[in-house]
């Protein structure tokens, strides 16, 4: 873990090392016999090594579809996704995902520990145990290893999902609306925790969210998508130093300014197709 830990590198240097690159991505959907939905129009973006990028957009703008294409879970119709220079055909080994619905992504038949160890079968048992312990400690659930996920509250379950992701010692962490299913108080605590974990581990993080405040608070850069078929409307740099404190950040004039601009950008984009 320690050898992977990077200190905060200035933004200018980071952008030189593109880790994840999307060019001209497009995706259509046909649900059953119905008409096809043009989910993603034309999206190009790149994420630098160690960067924290948030993608925001109006609901139903194909954010989740974009994440699935980025991660290799879904094949795009047009365009290309490159991860560390290589085209993505399947989920890369050092890429972890935290899904929105923890109750459909954690395995209910496994204890918290075994869920966290799930991606580590190649490692010896003792190493697995140690990784799980370390990951659970990071999300402050060390006392719950032998519980089942369904015995925990929603916020705790999502922390198990985060522990499962970081136990993999990933280079990239993708998060799809990770805090949308938890209550507001828990959400703030989880945002702070996740941002600090991402920084401490030097992860390249991509957060998909519809929550503008969350995007600004957590990310180095916010990518704003239009309604379906989505394209990138703007990319905004968040020049607020870390570590960030939720209340302090939200009181900053830069925060309000960014928030207003993003709000206008999303509101101004054409309405979603029926």
């Amino acid at each position, binding site marked *: 873990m320690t050898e992977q830990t990077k200190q905060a590198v200035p933004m200018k240097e980071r952008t030189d090392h593109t880790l994840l690159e999307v060019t001209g991505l497009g995706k259509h959907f046909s649900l059953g016999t119905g008409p096809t939905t043009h989910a993603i129009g034309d999206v190009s973006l790149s994420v630098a090594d160690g960067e924290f990028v948030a993608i925001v957009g109006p609901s139903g703008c194909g954010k989740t579809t974009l994440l699935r294409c980025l*991660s290799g879970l879904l094949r795009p119709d047009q365009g290309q996704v490159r991860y560390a220079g290589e085209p993505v055909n399947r989920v890369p080994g050092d890429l972890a995902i935290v899904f929105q619905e923890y109750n*459909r992504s954690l*395995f209910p*038949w496994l204890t918290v520990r075994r869920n966290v160890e*799930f991606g580590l*079968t190649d490692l010896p048992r003792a190493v697995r145990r140690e990784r799980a312990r370390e990951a659970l400690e990071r999300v402050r659930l*060390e006392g719950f290893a032998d519980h089942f996920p369904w015995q925990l*509250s929603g916020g*705790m379950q999502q922390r198990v999902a985060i522990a499962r992701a970081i136990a993999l010692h990933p280079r990239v962490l993708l998060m799809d609306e990770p805090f949308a299913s938890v209550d507001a108080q828990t959400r703030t605590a989880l945002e*702070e925790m996740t941002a600090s974990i991402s920084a401490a581990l030097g992860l390249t993080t991509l957060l998909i969210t519809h929550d503008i405040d969350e995007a600004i608070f957590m990310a180095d850069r916010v990518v704003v998508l239009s309604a379906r078929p989505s394209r990138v409307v703007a990319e905004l740099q968040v020049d607020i130093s870390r570590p960030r404190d939720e209340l302090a950040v939200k009181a900053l004039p830069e925060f309000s300014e960014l928030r207003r601009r993003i709000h206008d950008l999303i509101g101004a984009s054409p309405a979603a197709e029926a």
Partner: protein
Amino acid sequence: MTTTEINRVTGPGAVRAKARGGFRGMRRRVTALALGWGFVALLLGLWEMAGRADTTALLPPFSVVATELVDLITGDALMTDIMPSLARALAGFVIGSLVGVVLGVALGWWRGLEPWCRSALEFLRAVPAPALLPLAILAFGASDTTRVGVIALGAVWPVLLNTTDGVRRVEAGYIDSARVYARGGRAELLRRVVLPAATPQIMAGLRVGLALSLIMMVISEMIASSSGLGNLILRAQRLYALDQMYAGVLLLGVLGWLLTLLFSAVERRALAWFYGLKGQDR
């Protein structure tokens, strides 16, 4: 932020499962059990009275049948009829279940198989297995192998259909998680995610399969057989040994009940997570 702080923030009653059960739940269960057994005692009492009042000798009292039942269990019938019956039923159930699970997983997993097999399966499962017994005896002889085969044929359908359904309808989110965290490919996906996720439905199929195995056992023993509980009941009827005939029926009921109880115990262990997840009180 400290541990207690964030754990508090994540919600009161976070660890819900342990609060379940408790004294009230226990009392409710004891009451339910007492009521259930009380009703059984009442029915047996009515049987006893009706039996004593009966002048046609068609209905011996419960006490007489119970005595006969004890004689059956302690006498020769244990080895000549009861044990062979149980062995056939269990062998048929195990074979039928194995075949059902294997074929069910295959059909659920390789969806391309379905168009080929669908009509044939629909037809085969609509044919009542007892109807095949005379044919099976003609073809394979009146042997234990034939009987076990027919019992397996009866048990296979609910297991097969439930397994197929369970495998096919695994939560898409589990599959996504597996594609991110289980890198071993399709075989690993099947073993570590699909099978565990389908277990509740497979168990539901097995439960029906077990009941059908007992039914098929009795039927198979009533045709061209010289041993077993089905044969014992038929023999007793022909000899007009009504006490023994009733005892045989009662014993079948008791055996079926015990096997279901045993199955439920295994199921509760294997599916503890499922009942916990559904918040069902055990």
